[in-house]
């Protein structure tokens, strides 16, 4: 998309204020900025314990120009469902209730509430910004930390695989599930806009490379995010009413030769620096297999 196209899609209005306490190169603040632009301020945000609990600013300040309800770690989806039903009872239409939660708050401690809200098809938009570890408490592994990654609780590298959360959510048969990346803001904005047209449970899983936790320089967030997609480690897709579709750059990566080798992505990050050649081959193998499975979904749809 050219500059003109971008300006047409992305509103100038800012809802995340500058001067907020996020780290340099923070992917959460990038994602939050695009998300709120896409929502145009007609949203109530529910934020469980996460880095964003800090980014919203200390009392009595707020870095966001939308109402925020901070909530306990495991409670985001159910709290949002409560708000959404209350707005309906009160006859307030056109306000999107949005959960903005990290990978720990979504895939680990918040999974029960998330699954409950998804199964009930609660009318909320749930956005998981996935920086692949507990960053706010100082880089501990989560179930979304990928294989091999160093964290403070996996000092030799994680031995388990990353949980495939968007597909788990999709299995709840909700109207809209999508993945996105902070490296592809237009794709994210279009997905948010599409999601909020649906009543019911919408889920967007946002890949969010974290310079602090992944051990790369703060000016490389977008580059690392883009490489995750270009190598095929992170895939951009959406599942609309059960129909699977690759989006943005990912739709042109079906041919394996179009995908960069995973090492291009891994070598930029300190968290993978201990990986052996064997580990890297294993990761490459997993990516290839994942794409084979995706091909099946593409054909089925």
């Amino acid at each position: 998309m050219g500059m003109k196209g971008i300006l047409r899609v992305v509103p100038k209005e800012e809802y995340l204020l500058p001067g907020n306490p996020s780290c340099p190169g923070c992917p959460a603040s990038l994602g939050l900025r695009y998300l709120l632009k896409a929502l145009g301020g007609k949203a109530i945000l529910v934020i469980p314990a996460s880095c964003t609990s800090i980014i919203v600013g200390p009392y009595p300040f707020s870095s966001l120009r939308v109402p925020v309800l901070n909530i306990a770690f495991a409670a985001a989806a159910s709290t949002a469902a409560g708000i959404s039903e209350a707005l309906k009872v009160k006859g307030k239409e056109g306000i999107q209730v949005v959960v903005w939660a990290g990978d720990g708050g979504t895939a680990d401690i918040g999974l029960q509430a998330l699954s409950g809200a998804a199964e009930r098809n609660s009318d909320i938009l749930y956005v998981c910004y996935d920086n692949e570890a507990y960053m706010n408490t100082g880089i501990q592994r989560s179930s979304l930390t990928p294989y091999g990654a160093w964290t403070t609780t996996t000092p030799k590298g994680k031995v388990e695989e990353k949980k495939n959360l968007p597909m788990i959510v999709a299995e709840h048969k909700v109207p809209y599930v999508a993945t996105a990346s902070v490296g592809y803001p237009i794709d994210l904005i279009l997905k948010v806009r599409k999601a909020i047209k649906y009543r019911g449970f919408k889920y967007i899983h946002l890949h969010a490379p974290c310079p602090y936790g992944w051990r790369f320089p703060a000016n490389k967030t977008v580059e690392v995010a883009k490489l995750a997609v270009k190598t095929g480690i992170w895939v951009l897709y959406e599942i609309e009413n059960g129909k699977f579709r690759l989006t943005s750059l990912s739709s042109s990566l079906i041919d394996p030769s179009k995908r960069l080798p995973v090492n291009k992505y891994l070598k930029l990050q300190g968290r993978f620096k201990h990986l052996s050649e064997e580990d890297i081959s294993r990761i490459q193998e997993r990516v290839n297999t994942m794409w084979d499975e995706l091909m099946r979904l593409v054909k089925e749809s």
Partner: protein
Amino acid sequence: MISLRRSKVMKLLLTSNYAAAYGAKLARVEIVAAYPITPQTQVVEKLAEFIEGEELKATMIRVESEHSAMAACIGAAAAGARPFTATSSQGLLYMYEMIWWAAGARLPIVMGVVTRAIAPPWSIWSDHADILSIRDSGWIIIFSESAQEVLDNIIQAYRIAEHKEVLLPVAVGWDAFTSSHTAEPVSLPEQELVDSFLPPRTPEPFVLDVNEPISHGNLTYPDEYMEFRFLINEGLERARKVIREVGKEYGKLTGREYGLIEEYKCGDADVILVTLGSMAGDVKDAVDILRKEGYHAGLVKLRCLRPFPREALLNALREARAVGIVERSFSMGRGGIIATEINSLLRESGVNDVVTVSYIAGLGGREIGVNDFINIFKSLFKKMERGSGFEVVWYGLRG
């Protein structure tokens, strides 16, 4: 306002669980979020019937856990609606984190607690360890003796919780099975009458609003956190007066007035038993029997556990020579929870010439009845000769 005389009163045979559902319906709750647990289930089942039968205009959120039940109530209350939930025992413990959140966020939520023992070992029967676990959280805690009180207390609870001087959640307790599953005649006030007593909630300025965005619950530095806790306590202290005013006004409308405690023949009593919930009825019978035998016995029934009814208790108990506190709860390594509070109240108020005895009784639904209370009274009439002191007795413990 509608007067009692003109208002028609309908009587129904209801268990406390059904009375709770009728109370919530008459209070026109807007969101019901709950998770089933024995012995609370009929509360939610009845409300589901009301909602699906279009007798109550509300939304039911059939959550996957109690943690989510309270979270949904918090969301609903923060968005300006009137939420209701009910739970018991393990369920209350599972939502414990959100219990504190609700009070800290100053949200007017009402919750029924069917008081039940905590496992292990599994027990589904009456016990007060569950509701007393939320004692220090900032919730107002009101206890009920009968199905009528459950209904009346739930209606009043919304007036108290939503009062601008209070803005705190209220838990209304009643005993497992003895109350929850036992039917009694209950007077149902007319909807019109309840509407005049309890108007719709007026949204406070902090209610979530996209036109005036504010942020709730942000990180607060040591410079300000203490003040937030202090203000919760201020609200709870003010609630004492509000609970009495609301109880009086409710009395004018229905003929059933409520205070912080209920005194029964305490005026000239040498020995007073303090208790709560369904045990109170049997204690009244014991008092009547003993009075006929010439004993000056009395009862104080605690209605309000938090805020602690300091002055009311002191007035009722200060002339007694012995005070026995019979409770289905215990603080491990200390004594009866309510008993130690009452004992300190008496001592800190300079009342030293009194014997206080903490009776731990009826845990896990252990039967306790009129004859037991007569035994306890008689033993207190002997103990009062000691003049002073504090003692813990596990009543009816098997050797």
